[in-house]
């Protein structure tokens, strides 16, 4: 297999270990005087966007940062709970850059680019240093050093954390760095602004059209480069752990203007989420993977067992992850844990009223911690109650906020009875195709963080999303953008009355008018829910050719219906949430179709993409490395017409193997 001529990943020559160091030292630079006249637009202010905008401004570029939220601090990175990985080896347990690289490639089921992943592992340590220097209050040991915990798919402790609010603390660190630049006038902040389209001039990305969400006014913004740091598209499923506003619009507009979309079908279903409680549900809430450090997952051994969990004796419980994967136990990667939960529930062993849940039980480890504490406090022969109380305090310190959140949502106390959990859509490994510089197939247009496809292959390991977002923003783009901008120092700011801007704005305007004048009978949400159901049923945790084919037809039908029967109340020149949602759902519908096309084309199972036709006798994902060891980069040709380009994945340092966590 050879890569498509339209795709040049620009991976530097040299050994894996030397590629980044050498490249970083030889990439073109822009001198400080020229930086002052180069303008960069950063769309999105999550970990990737805020860190990129702050760092580029520190370097001297003129930066504009946009977010649709009312403040950059509210980007959904804030909700990441468990932690951030880094190959520091502070625990002296054999961690190294290579091991983090290896775990990530293996965890991604051998569908990620070696060079990118190695670079990610190399800079991971710098991220921790940078965040600590900013005053991010990571958890610490009594001696004052940083604390670590374990996450799925690894056998070392390399996850740095701040209780169950790591994403919040990292984002607030990046946000404060960004606000520092805003205060100094180096960044122009445009909150409550939606990116509506990108503007290309002579084959290069030269700016964007944005909508001021308060006044509804359309704005034209010029930039020598545009960085899309707009997150993932999990909300295509309607119900996901994403924020209500998380959307694909920026990436999708870029896609329709020439940026190829990489591996759209790779979606991550997170194994530990609070189950759906009714059809009113607007979103799903994650219970951090870190809980699997201390929680044991089980279902009754008997089908349809309606006893209370406490009444089910030990020998009638099936700790199915520990049974199937003794080496990793409850800490198998997310895709494996999710499928195993689905398998048990589909086979009739599920618990709770819906029977679509499994138990995550802390009793065993609460008792274990209690015993340790009792020994520490010199308590001899403590009663079971005393032990459990001491253990509860330990569990509370580690996961208190998560337990409170669970109780608030379900009305049940997880200290007393096991949590009920079920997998839910959480993250999208797919995204805009980018080269080693993080540039899309449109020159000058970049994608960072979850918005790109680059580092996680077909499945992301826990605590690696924060790592990638910050790596891209703090330590990759500040170097790699020089490769492009050094060629742009002679390009003067293009006035926004240029015909390309005028045309792009007119198109956006036309679309807004169209949406407002359909005046149909069904709400935007009703279409979103229907799309979500199609996607979850047919392009969710398990997929098959027949289902995907029918999904494509259904989505095309849904699209027609949307554009003839949607009801968008209100006007264009005001704060209009329904209009915002309508734009987003329209794009989700088109993306949904591409996801199904991609899933249908990939005749293998890998990571989060599980095709029922391709599995081992044990029900594990069965890859086809001979035919599918490639990145699928889709080019938009016309509506419902996408062309596949393949980037061959070459493994020069890691031997491809069937993943084995048993």
């Amino acid at each position: 297999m050879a890569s498509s001529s339209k795709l040049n990943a620009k991976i530097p020559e040299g050994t894996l270990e030397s590629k980044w160091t050498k490249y970083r030292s030889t990439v073109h630079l822009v001198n400080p005087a020229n930086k002052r006249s180069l303008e960069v637009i950063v769309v999105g202010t999550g970990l990737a966007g805020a860190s990129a905008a702050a760092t580029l401004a520190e370097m001297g570029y003129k930066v504009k940062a946009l977010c649709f939220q009312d403040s950059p601090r509210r980007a959904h990175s804030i909700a990441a709970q468990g932690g951030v990985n880094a190959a520091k080896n502070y625990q002296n347990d054999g961690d190294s850059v290579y091991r983090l690289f290896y775990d990530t490639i293996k965890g991604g089921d051998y569908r990620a680019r070696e060079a990118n992943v190695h670079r990610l592992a190399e800079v991971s340590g710098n991220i921790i240093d940078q965040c600590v220097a900013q005053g991010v209050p990571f958890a610490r040991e009594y001696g004052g050093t940083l604390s670590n915990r374990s996450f799925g798919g690894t056998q070392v402790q390399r996850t740095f954390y701040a209780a169950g609010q790591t994403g919040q603390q990292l984002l607030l660190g990046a946000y404060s760095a960004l606000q520092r630049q805003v205060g100094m006038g180096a960044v122009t902040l445009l909150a409550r602004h939606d990116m509506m389209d990108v503007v290309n001039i002579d084959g290069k990305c030269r700016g964007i059209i944005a909508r001021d969400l308060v006044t509804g006014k359309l704005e034209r913004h010029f930039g020598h480069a545009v960085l899309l740091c707009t997150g993932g598209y999990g909300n295509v499923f309607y119900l996901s752990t994403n924020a209500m506003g998380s959307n694909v619009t920026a990436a999708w507009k870029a896609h329709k203007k020439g940026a190829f979309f990489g591996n759209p079908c790779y979606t991550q279903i997170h194994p530990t989420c609070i189950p759906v409680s009714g059809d009113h549900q607007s979103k799903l809430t994650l219970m951090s993977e870190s809980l699997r450090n201390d929680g044991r997952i089980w279902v009754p051994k008997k089908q349809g067992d309606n006893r209370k969990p406490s009444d089910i004796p030990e020998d009638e419980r099936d700790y199915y992850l520990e049974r199937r994967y003794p080496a990793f136990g409850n800490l198998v990667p997310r895709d494996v844990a999710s499928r195993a939960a689905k398998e048990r529930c589909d086979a009739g062993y599920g618990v709770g009223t819906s029977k679509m849940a499994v138990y995550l039980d802390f009793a065993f480890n609460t008792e274990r911690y209690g015993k340790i504490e009792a020994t520490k406090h010199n308590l001899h022969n403590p009663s079971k109650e005393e032990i459990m109380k001491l253990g509860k305090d330990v569990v509370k310190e580690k996961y208190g906020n998560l337990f409170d959140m669970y109780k608030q949502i379900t009305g049940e106390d997880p200290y007393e009875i096991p949590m009920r959990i079920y997998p839910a859509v959480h993250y999208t490994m797919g995204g805009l195709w980018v080269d080693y510089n993080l540039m899309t197939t449109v020159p000058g247009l970049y994608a960072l963080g979850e918005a790109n496809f680059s580092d996680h292959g077909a499945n992301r390991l826990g605590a690696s999303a924060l790592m990638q977002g910050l790596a891209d923003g703090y330590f990759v783009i500040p170097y790699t953008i020089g490769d492009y901008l050094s060629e742009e120092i002679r390009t003067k700011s293009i006035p926004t009355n240029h015909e390309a801007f005028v045309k792009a704005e007119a198109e956006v305007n036309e679309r807004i008018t169209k949406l407002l004048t359909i005046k149909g009978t069904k709400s935007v949400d009703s279409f979103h829910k229907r799309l979500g159901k199609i996607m979850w049923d047919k392009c969710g945790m398990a997929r098959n050719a027949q289902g995907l084919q029918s999904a494509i037809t259904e989505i095309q039908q849904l699209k027609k219906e949307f554009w003839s029967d949607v009801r968008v109340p209100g006007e264009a020149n005001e704060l209009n949430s329904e209009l915002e949602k309508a734009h987003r759902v329209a794009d989700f519908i088109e993306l949904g179709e591409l996801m199904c096309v991609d899933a249908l084309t990939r005749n293998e199972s890998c990571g989060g993409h599980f095709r029922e036709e391709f599995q081992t006798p044990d029900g594990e994902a069965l890859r086809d490395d001979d035919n599918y060891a490639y990145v699928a980069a889709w080019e938009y040709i016309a509506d419902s017409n996408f062309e596949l380009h393949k980037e061959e994945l070459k493994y020069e340092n890691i031997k491809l193997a069937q993943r084995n966590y048993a």
Partner: protein
Amino acid sequence: MSHGNMNLTLKVWKQKNKDTKGRFETYNAKGISPDMSFLEMFDVVNEQLINENKEPIAFDHDCREGICGACSMYINGRPHGPKGAVTTCQLHMRSFKDGDTIVVEPWRSAAFPVIKDLAVDRSSFDRIIAAGGFVNINTGNAKDANNILINKDDADDAFNAAACIGCGACVAACKNSSAMLFVSAKVSQLALLPQGQIERQDRVLNMVKQMDEEGFGNCTNTGACEAECPKSISLENIARLNREYSSALLTQNKIHH
């Protein structure tokens, strides 16, 4: 579509934009389930309104898991409603009774002007952070993280202060619209950590100056902010802010012009 069997009367503040006057509108929320969040109840009402060709109610919300700080409803006289230590999105309808009348207002403060209905402009918070809520360090200058040892208790206290989600409930709850709890949380976080020492004095002076310029009121220690804070940020932080501020003014060996 019916989801449950609670029926409620809502009195909600409606205001077209910042330049127009607002008023209360009454809505009926029918078929509400006790398992819904308060915002999901609003989703149901808005869906009904759209079906009846009426304008839905605008409100800020995003993560719906209590961490982004976007949601901001003043419910029956209290920010984020009747339960302590939760955001509006984590408030569930089981906290209300069938037949209840619920009054919902936006945050009220000169520094938080209403944009539309229940959505307000909280960019004053961003400007306060921009005035000094950071450590002045450029990317790439950091030393190895474990070279900075930090006492665990200090680290924990800093974390507890840093847990602030910037929702503004403290301002909404305060009878004086004071932003002291918000400002003190950030000042405390950085004052407690070695990384924050270098600019400790300038930081507190600049942030308080910005806070005053934004038009927030003065703290009179009623403690309403702490009681209503969804993250239970402690009043101890306000005391620390007072201390930091006066000691900076008294001891700083430079004259500001």
